[in-house]
Each structure stands twice: as C-alpha cells, then as structure tokens.
C-alpha cells in the first residue's frame, strides 16, 4: 500500500541456510553423546531418583519448548493468520523437535522394565509408600485405576505419538507446499488445526498430570494442565524469537522478518509467557491458600521450606514482575537487543519454573510436627540442589539436541514458506 514498496530479496542466499546443516549435526551428536554418557553414569549414581528428576526437568524443558512451536503452528492455521507466515518456518523447525523427544522418555521405560519406576514415581510401589507414610499410601491407593504403571506407559505412548504425528503433519505439508504450491495444503492444514488444538490441549494437560503432578501423587490441582501449557507457550515463543533474531544476525531473511513481526512475537511472549503465566500460577496458589486443606497445601509448603522459599520468590520476580515491567513498553519489543534479552530471560525462566515444579519433595514426616515453625526449623538447611552438576550437564545435553535439530531442520527445509498464499500479506505486515 505504501508509495514506495521496498524490494524484497527472495534469492536462495537469503532464504536457504545450507551452511547450518553441518553445525546442526555436530551439535546434535555432542548433545546425544553427553546424554548417553550422563545416563550410564547417572543410573549407577547413589541417588538415582534425584538424577531422574533432573533428567525429567531438562527433558521436559526441550519438550515444552517444542510444544510451544507446535502450538504456534496450530494457532496460526486455526486463525488463518497472515502476519506470521514469515516466522512460521522457524516455528516449524522448532516443532519438528517433537519427532525426537520421545527418546528422552526411554530412561523411564527402562526403569519400568527394571521394575524400579517407584524410584521417581512413588505411586508405582504402594507397599514401599506404606512404610513411609500410611496416610499417603491410603490416599494414593484410591488412584490406582489411573496411576498404575501399565496405563501410565500407554498414556505416555499416546502423548508422544500424538505429538510426533501432529508435528509431522503440520511440518511436512508446509514443506511440500514449497515445491508444489498447492492451495489445498493450506486448506487441509486449516481444517485439521481445530481437532489438532483439542488433541494438543488434552495431551499436554494429561502429560502434566502424569509426569509432574504425579511426582507427589497425593497432591492434585485442576489448574495444573493449564500451568504446563502456559510453560509451553513461554518456552516456545521465547525460542521462536531467539531463532528468528539469530537467523537474521547470521545474515538470513534480510528484509523479510521486520520490526513489526518482532513486536508481535514480543506481544505473544508478554501475553502468554508473562501475564497469563502469572494469572494461572496465582489462581492455582490462591485457591489452595484460601481453602487451606493440608493435602493441598503440602505441595506449596514443600516450596517454602529452607532455600526453596528463595526459589519461589526468584520465580515470582524472574517470571512475572521484572519481565512484566520490561516488556510492557513498545520499544523493548521492537528493538532487537532488548527483545533478544527478554526471550533468553523467559526461556531461562521456563527452565527455572520446571526446576521449581519438579525438584522439591513433600517431606513424608510432615505429620510428626505440630507447627509450621517446627517444620521450617527442621528443613531450614534443605539445599536447593540448583548447583548440582546434573542440573547443568543434562541441560547442556538436551539444549544441544534442541538447537542442533532446529538448525538441521532449518537447513533442510529452507527458511521461508515460499508458496504460502498469505506470504505477500505477511511481508508487508504493519502494526497500526
């Protein structure tokens, strides 16, 4: 519409990144090697439960980031979005990580096969739980129809296969459109985005119940699925921002992704990753705080004991208050330096959030104390394990896999949905 439309460079040097293939492969190889070695050392370590929790944390981190990419694709297609076509390919590269994340679940299958699943999931062995806490065993015993190891594994397989198929469907059709330019593909993706959204919502919610909530099987929160979903959005949108910013810094997509697109990614990150997260986290907290029922409050008590209290406060400031004040301005979303900083910050916050969700355990001897102060005094020296080497080794391993796969997919798929019917609209998109 403007009088002098800028010429957009669509030559292959701008929208193909063949050079990323090799570094991508190397990163993936290193990451995989680190994970394999870490697992073989970890399974011999004295506290295998702790190791598995760290594994769960970092594995779920890359899984949630990839799920965020998939969610972006689903929303893009379901709303017939025009602005996001130029950033869709990076999101597709991120979502295609869902085609390998099932590997990260294998250690749990291995422990199940060994019959040791209770090393991380207390519900898997009720007899052992009875020795620790009779009341808890009684509560958890009533949930065996859902929380039993066979059904647990079947459900996990359903989630992982669903994510594999969804990411495959959305990515492969988009890539195929680059060569055949068929409008029917766009129509097909838009038609199936609706059912995909339902599947996505169900699988992420139940995955959260299974993999994080059931670590403390007596505890429950109906908000928890949404909380996990918000985590996916936080990680996914932050990572989409980082990938786009880094691709442009490397000299790709010049003049294609503009300040206007970055502002919209920043808006999504602000709305979902910051505000909606706080909204859900507080809703979950306030209901439990208000009702004050011991079996519910124990979960938050565990996060206020000893140094976990510091973790909770850092999360409150790091995931909500500081980024809220930082990202509320228009210019911080439009200037690349500040947006990159915010994206990296929020990605780290998502990882820290998972640390907060997965690591603290509810003390089984809570009943032995007569007051909150006594429990606090007893657990004052409870260390937060944040500097535990496993925390960092596994993070590096999984991140290398994530980044490596994203780069490889970007180099094999190209960086732009060339034949998308809404590409022109996206290229000249402007915030009013």
């Amino acid at each position, binding site marked *: *519409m*403007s*009088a002098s439309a800028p010429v957009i460079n669509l030559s292959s040097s701008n929208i193909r990144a063949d050079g990323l293939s090799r570094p991508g492969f190397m990163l993936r190889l290193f990451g995989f090697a680190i994970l394999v070695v870490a697992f073989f050392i970890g399974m011999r370590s004295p506290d295998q439960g702790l190791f598995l929790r760290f594994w769960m944390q970092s594995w779920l981190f890359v899984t949630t980031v990839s799920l965020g990419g998939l969610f972006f694709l689903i929303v893009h297609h379901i709303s017939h979005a025009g602005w996001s076509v130029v950033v869709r390919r990076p999101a597709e590269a991120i979502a295609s990580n869902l085609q390998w994340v099932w590997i990260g679940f294998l250690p749990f299958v291995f422990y199940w096969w060994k019959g040791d699943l209770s090393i991380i999931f207390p519900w898997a062995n009720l007899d052992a739980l009875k020795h620790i806490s009779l009341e808890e065993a009684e509560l958890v015993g009533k949930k065996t129809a859902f929380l039993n190891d066979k059904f647990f594994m079947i459900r996990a397989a359903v989630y992982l296969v669903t994510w594999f198929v969804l990411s495959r469907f959305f990515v492969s059709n988009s890539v195929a459109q680059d060569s055949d330019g068929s409008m029917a593909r766009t129509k097909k993706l838009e038609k199936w985005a609706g059912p995909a959204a339902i599947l996505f919502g169900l699988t992420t919610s139940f995955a959260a119940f299974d993999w994080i909530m059931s670590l403390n099987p007596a505890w429950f929160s109906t908000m928890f699925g949404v909380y996990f979903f918000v985590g996916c959005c936080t990680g996914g949108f932050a990572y989409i921002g980082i990938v786009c910013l880094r691709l442009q810094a490397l000299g790709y997509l010049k003049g294609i992704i503009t300040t206007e697109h970055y502002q919209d990614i920043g808006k999504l990150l602000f709305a979902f990753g910051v505000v909606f997260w706080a909204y859900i986290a*507080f809703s979950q*907290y*306030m209901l439990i*705080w*208000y009702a*004050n029922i011991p079996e519910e409050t124990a979960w938050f008590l565990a996060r206020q004991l000893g140094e976990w209290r510091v973790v909770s406060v850092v999360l409150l400031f790091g995931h909500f208050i500081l980024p809220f004040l930082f990202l*509320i301005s*228009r210019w911080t979303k439009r200037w690349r330096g500040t947006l990159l900083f915010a994206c990296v910050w929020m990605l780290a916050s998502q990882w820290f959030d998972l640390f907060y969700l997965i690591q603290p355990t509810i003390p089984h001897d809570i009943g032995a104390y007569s007051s909150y102060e006594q429990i606090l005094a007893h657990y004052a020296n409870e260390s937060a394990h944040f500097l535990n080497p496993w925390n960092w080794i596994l993070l590096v391993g999984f991140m290398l896999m994530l980044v490596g796969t994203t780069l490889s997919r970007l180099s094999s798929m190209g960086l732009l949905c060339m034949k998308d019917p809404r590409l022109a609209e996206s290229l*000249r998109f*402007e915030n*009013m």
Partner: protein
Amino acid sequence: MTTLSPTTAPVTQGNQIPRKRLYGIVAEFHDPAALMAAADKVRMAGFRWWDCHTPFPVHGLDKAMGIKRTILPVLVFGAGLTGTTIGFCLQAFTNAASFSIWALVWVTGYPFLISGKPLISMPAFIPVMFELTILLSALSAVGIMFLFNGLPRWNHPLLSNKRFLRVTDDRFFIVIESRDPRFFASRTEQFLKDLGAKAVEMVEA
C-alpha cells in the same frame, strides 16, 4: 458549534454583511498514493492544524503526516497503577484500619478473621486489586481516547460539505484548518491545487 447547510447563502441584514467563519479547506484526492505524496508536502510546508481523511487505514500515512506517538499508553499505565493502589487501600482500610482523629473520632474498619488468615493478607487482596487495575485501565483508555479526539460531539463542520461525504466510500481528503498560523485562504487553496488535488473547496464553520 453551529452548523449551516452548504446551500444557504449568506443572509444580509441591513447594510451589514455577516461574515461566516471559515473552518478550513478540503482537498480531494482519488487514490491513497496521491494522498500520501500530498500529505508529505503539507507536513514539509510546516502546517500544524491539518488532517487526512480516508475510507480505510492507509499504511505509512502516519509517517507521511509526521504524527507522533500518542501518550495514551503511559496515561493508561498510570490509571492502572492507581487502580492497584485503590484496591489495596480499600481493602486494607476496611479490613484492618483502626485509628482516631485527634482522639475524638474513632475510625475502625470491619475486621473479619477468616480461617486464621491475618487481617492484611495479600493473596486475598490481589483479585480485587487486579480487577480495579483492569477496570481503571479500560475506562481511562476509552475515556481519554474520547477526550483526545474531541468526542463526543453532535456535528462537525466537514460534514456540511457534500463532496466530503464520499470519504466513507472512495475518496481521500486533506483538510487544512483556518486556525493554522500558516493558513491564508487564497494561498493555501493554490498550494493544495498545486499538490494535485482533484478538487479544492472552502468549508465554513
């Protein structure tokens, strides 16, 4: 603001010829590109009291006109913070206040102890603080927007111009108001004609 139909000729009373005040000059364009080019030139000529009217949003027009960003967001943020503060004070006062004014009048709230929570307990206060933040932000956003746009009003001088009515359909207009210090009826009319306007007309207030 009085309105006159465009067909009404000036009425003479005795020897005096009442002069109607001039509101401004409208210049009609037939396509957005011509409008953009003209708007660029009007801005360069240094006019302040002028505006563009189009049937649909035209990308880049704000830039061509040199419109600065509105301070509305800052005001809304301030209103939101006010709401948060009011929300907190309201609850803290009604639930936990207890003081005297010069030992004459005792002012107390209505302290309610619920399941052993302290009188000032933030988690319980946050929903109200949140709602008041949203309420004041939303109301102030709409209210200040109306204020800035000079709304509500019954009529506008431009609506008396027959030609201008096509602004909601397929015509694009630049209006330079007479209160602009650089406005001189004849000179400005010529200026707009030189910009390539298809038609230029005076509009009376």
